[in-house]
């Protein structure tokens, strides 16, 4: 994101205002309000997602460099 602190295109007020409309936060609120999910459920989902991403990063970093033939792998489905 080019303008994270609202320093080039937007004012700080605009950035803060838009944070209020964060769709993930709004969806979570809606789930609480409608009684679909409790706080523990949301925590669990968040942990699952963070764990998956952490695992993927760890896997990528622990993997050796791809072998040369990977250059042409999956260009087409055989």
């Amino acid at each position, binding site marked *: 994101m*080019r303008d994270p602190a609202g320093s*080039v*295109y937007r004012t700080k007020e605009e950035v803060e205002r838009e944070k209020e409309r964060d769709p993930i936060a709004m969806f979570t609120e809606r789930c609480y309000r409608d009684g679909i999910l409790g706080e523990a459920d949301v925590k669990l989902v968040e942990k699952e997602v963070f764990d998956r991403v952490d695992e993927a990063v760890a896997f990528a970093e622990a993997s050796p*460099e*791809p072998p*040369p033939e*990977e*250059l*042409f792998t999956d*260009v087409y489905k055989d």
Partner: protein
Amino acid sequence: MSIITYREALNQALREEMDRDPRVFVMGEEVGLYDGAYKVTQGLLKAYGEKRIIDTPICESGFTGVGVGAAMLGLRPVIEMMTFNFSILALDQIVNSAAKMCYMSGGQYPIPLVVRGPGGPAAQLAAQHSQSMETYFYHVPGLKVVRPTTPADAKGLLKSAIRDDNPVIFIEAETLYAVKGEVPDDPDFTIPLGKAIVRREGTDVTVVAYMGMMYRAMEVAEELAKEGISCELVDPRTLRPMDTDTIVSSVRKTHRAVVLEAGAGFAGMGSEIASEITEEAFDDLDAPVMRVTGENAPMPYAKNLEQLKTPSRAKIADAIRRICNR
């Protein structure tokens, strides 16, 4: 003469042409308030104001279309693509509007439009952002296509592109923006479109290359000189119109030709140059024309594979030795 970067040379060209002609203006993503994604337009908003340096929404087809319309009404727009890979989103405006308008209006609407920005392989920008986009454009009659290798060429050719009455596709390179070189200060300095240049004279083999491949070829030529192989390096600079005369007269002298291309070789620029040489100078050739091109795969992200994708110095040197029977 001043020693400046390729990026500064482009910036100078834009300033000089905007000073020279009030009809010239710049439009694109982040060209104004942010001073350019790669800082080519640095300081222009401050110097020329928001009427002539226009920040656009992220919509290539939209602002390129605005450029075509502005050119039809007599302005001379310079459209920046943040990277040329994004020009695919504006392909209809470039190919069907900009390139066809003059022809289909019986010459009533020439389109003095420049579309410029970086393209070609860079440093781990992966498959979608590393493409040699010139291949998408030089096939189209009505477009001119420029790939400037040095800072002086960047300046002189951009000025000519802006003064040209046709749509010009002007593709720079992320990897060359920081390269320094001697650039004339004279505001009337231009380099004509459609003129190749011999960057190094030699007698044994003609090597045709541009952009990063030319820098690689210069290093290889230096190395091969120690082995007694004399390379002549020819840079087309403009891919369309192509200065085949300069390429062919070099081949008539050396009798051998190797054509380098960073992008995927299939139906690439190398194929076109190789067939031009074969058609024009077959009887002068002592060996079939060779191509050394990028592999026919998307650009991989992994660094080791990225290095395999684009022709290496070793691969280029091997091809030259082979054509010279060494």
